[in-house]
């Protein structure tokens, strides 16, 4: 499926497939786009993120069952991230849950909308209304230390300083939009859910204030702050403890799909853990072995060239006893060092919203 904004993007845009969708990978160069994310304000075409609406009397009960975090009292002015698990505790997707007055929007990760929809429909014991709104609604994102300024100029200065995970129903250009302070890169991040017919115009106006960034730069920036990229990380039958995604699960919630498996993982024998490493020039393939003093202790989950660190940055899944920062490992032909997240310090942390 092509981006609904494909026609709005310039000819030189490089598109690529991410799971079930085709999205802009880059508009210019990763370096330029990355710079916008980390130093100014980047505009993101998030049309590849699926948007599924659940509504009806049983919507909250259904959401409580299919989501791993507690959304019972999620109001229409809040959003939050959560995992969606299957019965065996495997990650189906990571979603942004948007509280709505009559239900919720579940925003899938990039390209994962169809499989999320299928999972939801399969578990719809409550008979709630599940509607894929991805066609009629499009998501645009703004991320960067000065993204708040763009929001002020584009929509309303009051929205710029919204607390994290706050949502407001507002208007832009006379069009009803859902506006949320969220984000993937630990910079100031905002998302705008806009009717698809108005998406190109919002994109165009946003371009006057921000630099477009594609999925490549976005995923690099995500890894730099240990924001999960599910399609890279939920591999090899990893459980959520091994994957380090337990912060997206709330086991104090009495019941949800996958809870038993999660509890088992919590209480189970200490297995592998996922942690970041940096070093080297080449980017190792997933599955590359990781050695400590010559001993095989695990494998690379995935890696990128971090523009923030100026070196290779990756995740490794290693025996738990090696899951500590500051250790020296060998990955392929490179010597690497294990790191604590976030692996870079986002500029937004030191820039106030005025």
């Amino acid at each position, binding site marked *: 499926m092509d981006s609904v904004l494909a026609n709005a993007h310039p000819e030189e845009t490089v598109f690529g497939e991410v799971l079930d969708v085709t999205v802009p990978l880059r508009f210019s160069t990763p370096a330029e786009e990355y710079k916008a994310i980390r130093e100014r304000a980047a505009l993101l075409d998030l049309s590849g993120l699926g948007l599924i609406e659940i509504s009806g009397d049983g919507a909250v009960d259904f959401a409580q069952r299919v989501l791993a975090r*507690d959304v019972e*009292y999620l109001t229409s002015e809040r959003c939050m991230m959560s995992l969606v698990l299957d019965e065996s505790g495997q990650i189906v997707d990571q979603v942004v849950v948007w509280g709505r007055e009559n239900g919720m929007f579940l925003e899938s990760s990039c390209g994962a909308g169809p499989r999320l929809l299928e999972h939801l429909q399969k578990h719809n014991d409550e008979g709630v209304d599940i509607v894929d709104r991805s066609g009629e609604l499009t998501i645009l994102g703004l991320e960067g230390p000065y993204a708040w300024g763009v929001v002020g100029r584009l929509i309303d200065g009051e929205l710029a300083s*919204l607390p994290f995970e706050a949502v407001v*129903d507002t208007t832009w250009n006379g069009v009803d939009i859902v506006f949320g302070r969220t984000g993937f890169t630990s910079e100031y991040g905002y998302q705008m859910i806009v009717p698809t017919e108005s998406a190109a115009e919002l994109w165009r106006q946003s371009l006057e204030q921000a630099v477009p960034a594609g999925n490549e730069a976005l995923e690099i920036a995500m890894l730099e702050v240990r924001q999960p990229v599910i399609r890279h990380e939920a591999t090899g039958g990893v459980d959520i403890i091994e994957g380090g995604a337990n912060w997206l699960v709330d086991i104090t919630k009495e019941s949800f799909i996958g809870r038993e498996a999660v509890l088992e993982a919590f209480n189970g024998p200490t297995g592998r853990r996922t942690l970041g490493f940096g070093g080297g020039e080449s980017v190792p393939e997933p599955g590359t072995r990781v050695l400590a003093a010559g001993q095989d202790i695990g494998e690379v989950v995935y890696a990128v060239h971090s523009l923030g660190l100026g070196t290779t940055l990756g995740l490794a899944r290693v025996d738990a006893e090696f899951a500590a920062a500051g250790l020296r490992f060998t990955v392929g032909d490179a010597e690497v060092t294990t790191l604590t997240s976030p692996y870079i310090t986002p500029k937004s942390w030191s820039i106030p919203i*005025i």
Partner: protein
Amino acid sequence: MASRPVVITGLGVICAIGRDPEEFWLRLMAGQGGVTPVDDEAFAVFTARYAGQVPTEWITGQLPESDAALDRTAQLALVAARQAVGQAGLSAGDVEADRFGLVLGKCQATPDAAGRYQPMHRTGDVVAGRLGMRGPRILVSTACAAGGNAVGLAKDKILTGEADVVLAGGVDPLLFGTYAGFAGLQALSTGPCAPYSRSDGLNLGEGAAFLLLEPLDRALARGATPLAEVAGYGLSADAYHATAPDPTGRGGASAVRRALADAGMSTDDVSYVSGHGTGTPANDAMEAKVMRAVFGDRAPRVPTSSIKSFVGHTLGAAGAVEAVASVLALRHGMAPPTIGFDADTTTDLDFVPNVARRMPIETVVSNNYAFGGNNVALALTTPGGEREYEELPDRPAVITGLGPVSGLGTGVAELAEALAEGRQAVGRAPSLEGRTFAPRSLWRHMNHLSRMAIAASRLAWEDAGIKLPRAALDNVGLIFATAAGSVESTGGFDESVAVDPNKPAVLSFSNVVLNATGGAVCQTLGLRGPTTTICNGEASASIALDCAIEMIKAGKADVVLVVAADETTATAAGDTVVTPYDRERTGSVPGSAAVAILVESAEHCAARGGRAYARILGSGHAGTGEQGERESIRRSLAGLSVGKAGLVVGAGTGGRYDADEAAVLLELVPDGLLTTSVAQTGDCQAATGAMNLAVAALAIRDGIAPALHGLEHPYAGEVESYVRKPHLSEAVEQALVLTAAADSVRGAVLLGAMP
């Protein structure tokens, strides 16, 4: 047509820069601050040592010998209160004692002369007693917004006709524990604070201020000089965080907009803004956003300043101290400066840096923001001439939802079942097992009082079957009623300070303010309408209900949630029995409970097809005086037609006033069977008042009431005059509910069946 103009005719203030309004104003105009290192050596343990202190001789020099034994809080309050009455030229005979009200704002629970905590309302009782005031008496405790809030509520008491003159103000002393709490939050500046420029923290202060309010026509008739008109006021809830302000400034902006709407004015009418200006980065950044949001392009041309740079943050007094400064600014055509302002600060706003400014001032907006996300804005104007006005419209209000949370159970169904079975749960704490009533991320950090109150609120909301879109929730009011707030948090905080003042339990500190629980309810339910917190002991719930009715009458809200909660750390034996109104079985037992009551305009309820329990037919309150309890009860009932009440839910607790109450009630309401919920729950203070309202509403709709099974030797009448079995033999057309804060205030509410 506008409502009756209400004016200020007297001012009183004592704080770090003056012992009276004249001295206060001279220092403000001279730019001469009063923040100095704390004299008390005990404070030497803190890195930050500056505060706005009142020299003790300023206090004692203005008090008669008979006030010498009073605690410092009462003394500060009396000094300022007498100044205000004196300036207004109010002499004996100018106002009937029964028509002379008091609304006092306080943030802290303050110690008595012996250093023990005293009831929140005690300071007000002392002032009212000394000045001969027996009219409405309210203790408002919206933390740092309380002083401004008091002025607004005082105006309401005049508009409803309950009082002819109301003294409104605030007071707070400098307390070691509070200082430790702010130090623990890293909120104190190490030197004199610099609001709006350096913004590196606040200074605490102490003081008191009062303003005397009366109707313009009445003031002119007695030859008084109106100093300013209280044109309007606005309240709002952030529904965001326990201590931090909503960074968007939405809550603050909403309060200003409501104040201007109440005053019938526009932002263009505002000449000067008296800011909250604590000097903390979060507050100052938020306030700048409020200015820009409210005034838009005009914001740089609306001067705003903070007199906290002179006096420190006087907490519950701050709003009143600033209101006094605002009135003086209007009178003199001078804007007080923000002192300590760093000249190198780059800003588009005009903070009146360092030097007072002469300028035409017709309207001042005075803003205050508080822990718990409570915001208040006052709109004060130059007094206009006498003019025609309209009384408040008669907008009937109904009770549409009940949320009882007590040892008897949670929710109406469990309560009804417990009443029907005559179950006893005296002193038993409510169980909230099995359901979280808020997002777990919030719930797990909440103290027990907030959990009870939130459970009660959600249950009342669900009981009412009300569903409102997000935009409507922005106008739903929330009135919290509590005698003492969270005993758990207060105890935990005090203990931590006693162990190490530099390691206070900061989470507990944020819950020590009495309005914290109300703020948590707003945050959890997303309510951003007008909000306040009432702390008049066991009478808090009926006073809170009055506030709700006033909001509805004034068109400020269609839906208001009244929530009352109190707790005890005492544990009662499982078989503890209390028998109110029995002369042979005296003694009361404390309990813990929260009760929420959803109040709606009858019109709103009908429009949504809601089903109400009862109509609110009327209410009355009387401050107690030297004439004794029976007279106070009679006066609280004076404005109500209570003769037809078939049920009376009294304020008896097994305490010393049961006999008086029973005697008066049996005389005035001869056909009303008397009962109280206390026999089954124990004395849950403010929550008992609300529980009595709830059981009365339930009796009207479902014909069931608490029975006094153990009553054998009533103080007054025969046992047949009391409810002896829960299922009432006759339908209750009207029910009378009493509340009482011992030696302070008496309340009464009359409920009627739906037509």
